[in-house]
């Protein structure tokens, strides 16, 4: 008798929180629930030509604590969207928030006005309105989607998107699991930004200590006094690896913390495909499954020639598809460790729910080297005094605390902190495309883009200018083939992402250059990519570390001339009088019927 009103109250409260279409009691979609058989059984991805997504507030619980989240369809991560190459899709996004929202389809090739970046591709989705994205699905692979409005992504507004190939999948597998990595915090994202602006290294609780070097256990602490002096003179902290750390983050796999231990099932002998997506706001992960070799078959949704390794680093916004073949009826731990080793999360692959494998402890945190300071070529004893620093157009200033004196291409390097691991570690140079990139033309010109920042002031920018300071857009001619050279003048990794395109990351390896949408540029290093500017329009180009982007490390790529979208559109009208962001050209674009109901006054 007593239980009934309690239960009712719980449900009412849940209802009041706006959990439209929520899977109570769990805040997790079926595929992300623990003990899942994988995507072939028991999962309920969103499929078909019409998909509805409701953005709203939810409460999210992890580690016995619960907090406010911004979710889609009431779940975190957002629902898995599963599409097929060649289909058309209409994604109806209902904004139940009191603020604008948006969804960017990360890595998808689509018309620029469907890309979902407020102020670049479209006006955003106003509160209590519906926006319909419509585009043909032209590709296959593992992708994801997330808000591009404010800092909503940090609050849970992200989810996986898998597209099956039109023809037979070149990757053979018996079972698959989507593995969404993310970083959850109970701290409000605006508070996070305020803290790092107030105190540059605020979230770093692994600073070097005065007597740390004497302890001697940790090789990373054995820095000579002279080296420490050198870092101090530069006012740089060799332990400043991540801006936001495990001090406030709970790292999640499919919405589960390490205690909740998400478990995916397999039968021994099966080829299991794991679709890793790093949907974090700020966290680069080192991923390994002790005891199982990992065969990388796809990167950023693009198939690569299978390459076997033991550990890979996945930068923010990257995806890696991995095949594992567990042969024994035993559990295996998927370990995802943050790059600064301030925390880890784990999940389990097991034949039965409830089985567990040992969780390895966090390894000693890495420290930065002179190579990370952009003095890379000094390692070679070269006396080349033409250092890039000397001729760099970027100058030290308020927003630029460092110009790499001799940045070197680091795409062949092992990722930061994994240099000395005794096992195999994936590098970009090991990635080669399964099918060569379509455009074989050599690039005709080069664009140098300097990644710049000030760690103490937490200012981040391109070429020393934040977007709000009138940064000149990157202008490309349609179908032009350019080489973009990213020069990292900071001690931080920056995952650089361009919207609406794939690029060839120039490794120069005999197997060809891997095709990606996001490249992690290592500290003090460079990475170059060749881009075919085949998608006219305006596209976002930014560091995918959320607070770096928010602090100014963002630009717009403008590709001209535009095609005939203009001809198809009637002349725009003024809709500034009301809240909903109505397209003036709703009739011309089958995409936007959703708006009629909401605005009612379209001409």
């Amino acid at each position, binding site marked *: 008798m007593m239980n009934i009103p309690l239960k009712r109250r719980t449900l009412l409260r849940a209802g009041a929180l706006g959990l439209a279409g929520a899977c109570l009691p769990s805040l997790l979609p079926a595929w992300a629930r623990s003990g899942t058989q994988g995507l072939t059984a028991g999962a309920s991805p969103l499929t078909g030509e019409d998909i509805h997504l409701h953005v709203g507030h939810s409460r999210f619980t992890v580690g016995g604590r619960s907090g406010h989240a911004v979710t889609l369809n009431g779940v975190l991560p957002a629902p898995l969207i599963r599409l097929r190459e060649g289909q058309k899709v209409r994604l109806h996004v209902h904004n139940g928030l009191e603020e604008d929202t948006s969804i960017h389809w990360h890595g998808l090739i689509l018309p620029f006005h469907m890309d979902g970046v407020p102020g*670049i591709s479209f006006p955003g989705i106003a509160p209590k309105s519906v926006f319909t994205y419509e585009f043909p699905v032209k590709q296959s692979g593992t992708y994801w989607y997330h808000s591009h409005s404010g800092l909503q992504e940090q609050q849970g507004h992200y989810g996986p998107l898998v597209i099956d190939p039109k023809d037979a999948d070149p990757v053979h597998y018996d079972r698959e699991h989507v593995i969404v990595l993310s970083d959850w915090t109970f701290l409000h994202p605006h508070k996070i930004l305020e803290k790092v602006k107030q105190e540059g290294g605020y979230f770093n609780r692994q600073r070097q200590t005065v007597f740390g070097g004497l302890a001697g256990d940790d090789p990373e602490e054995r820095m000579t006094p002279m080296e420490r002096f050198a870092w101090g003179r530069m006012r740089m902290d060799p332990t400043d690896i991540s801006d936001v750390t495990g001090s406030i983050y709970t790292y999640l796999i499919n919405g589960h913390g390490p205690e909740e231990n998400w478990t995916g099932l397999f039968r021994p002998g099966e080829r299991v495909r794991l679709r890793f997506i790093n949907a974090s706001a700020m966290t680069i992960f080192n991923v390994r499954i002790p005891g199982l070799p990992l065969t990388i078959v796809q990167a950023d949704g693009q198939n690569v020639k299978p390459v076997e390794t033991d550990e890979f680093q996945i930068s923010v916004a990257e995806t890696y598809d991995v095949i594992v073949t567990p042969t024994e009826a035993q559990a295996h731990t998927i370990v995802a460790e943050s790059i600064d080793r301030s925390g880890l999360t784990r999940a389990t692959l097991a034949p039965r729910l409830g089985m567990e494998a040992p969780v390895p402890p966090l390894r000693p945190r890495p420290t930065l080297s002179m190579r990370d300071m952009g003095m890379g070529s000094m390692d070679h004893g070269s006396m080349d005094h033409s250092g890039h620093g000397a001729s760099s157009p970027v100058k030290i200033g308020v927003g630029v605390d460092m110009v790499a004196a001799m940045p070197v291409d680091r795409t062949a390097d092992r990722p930061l902190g994994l240099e000395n691991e005794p096992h195999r570690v994936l590098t970009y140079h090991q990635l080669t495309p399964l099918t060569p990139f379509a455009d074989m033309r*050599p*690039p005709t*010109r080069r664009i140098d883009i300097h990644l710049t920042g000030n760690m103490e002031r937490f200012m981040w920018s391109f070429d020393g200018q934040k977007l709000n300071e009138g940064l000149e857009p990157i202008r490309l001619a349609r179908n032009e083939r350019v080489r973009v050279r990213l020069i990292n003048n900071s001690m931080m990794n920056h995952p650089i992402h361009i919207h609406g395109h794939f690029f060839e990351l120039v490794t120069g390896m005999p197997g060809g250059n891997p095709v990606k949408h996001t490249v992690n540029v290592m500290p003090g290093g460079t990475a170059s990519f060749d881009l075919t500017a085949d998608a006219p329009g305006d596209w976002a180009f930014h560091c995918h570390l959320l607070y770096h982007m928010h602090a100014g490390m963002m630009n717009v790529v403008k590709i001209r001339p535009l095609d005939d979208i203009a001809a198809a559109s009637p002349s725009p009208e003024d*809709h500034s009088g009301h809240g909903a962001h109505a397209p003036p050209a709703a009739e011309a674009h089958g995409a936007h019927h959703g708006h009629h109901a909401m605005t009612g006054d379209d001409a």
Partner: protein
Amino acid sequence: MSRLGLLAAACALAVLAAPARAQEANPHAGHDMGQLPTSPESMDHGQMQHGAHAGHQMMPAPMSPAEASQPPLAPPPPEAFTGPENAADIVWNPKLMARVRKTELIDMHGRFRGSKLMVDRLEYRGQDGRDGYLWDAEGWIGGDYDKLWIKTEGEGAFEEALESAEVQALWSHAISPWFDVQAGVRYDIRPRPKGSDAGRAHAILGLQGLAPYWLEVDAALFLSGKGDLTARIEAEHDMCLTNSLILQPRAEVDLAAQNVAETGTGSGLSSFEAGLRLRYEFIPEFAPYIGIEYARLFGNTRDYARAEGEDTGGWSFLVGVRTWF
């Protein structure tokens, strides 16, 4: 070398250096690149690095293919400048787009407004026969480049009148990665000039920021309404004993260009303080501390103090709290 010669050499080398695509035919292209006379990349710097070639050949890891054969830096072709400036304007309402571009794009990516209030020292000071207290707080509000700072500090002995107290209001402008220049006014609540009800006002010009070796520095010049020039330099450094237990040496020097009898300040070095505070950060924002401090007055300042029967220096034992938010 003449500019023309350089240009010719650059052209020749641009032809020599194969584009990345061509290298793929040769799996060892990357290694060969190291032996090329030089690369177009280095030509961009307008320097012929004859000395560097040998270095390249000796490199254990040759220059990467991407770095070895870069196409030239060049501006966008003319067609890149055609069409509307903002592509979305042809699809969506341009007025709405203009508004959203400002609020959701430009202001969302780099614009920052924030604030901080820091009580750096709020302490009980145990001195020989004369216990007292001290506060030192500052706050700012503003953006990355410009901020309004308010600073206040003061001290006194228990059961006596407030000994000294001041408030500063400063406009702060970032001038380098580490330093802000600050200008504003200081108002002394105490000590008041003799025979006056009003406080004393100063114009301030200062520099605040982070010096090499993680030294927090605040240096300021003060020009009083009567034309007296004084200066104050403060420096502190945080040493992590652990990530929560922090030892902070701190020093302060006061200087004056002339005697100011009204405030008991003598010309030259007037006072010096050196302290050592050990704080425990329960959270970074809240840290109680204990410490010691040695203070000394010099020259005429000391004489003024003696004449007034005041202390001229000595050791203090400190218990306090540092907090910010």
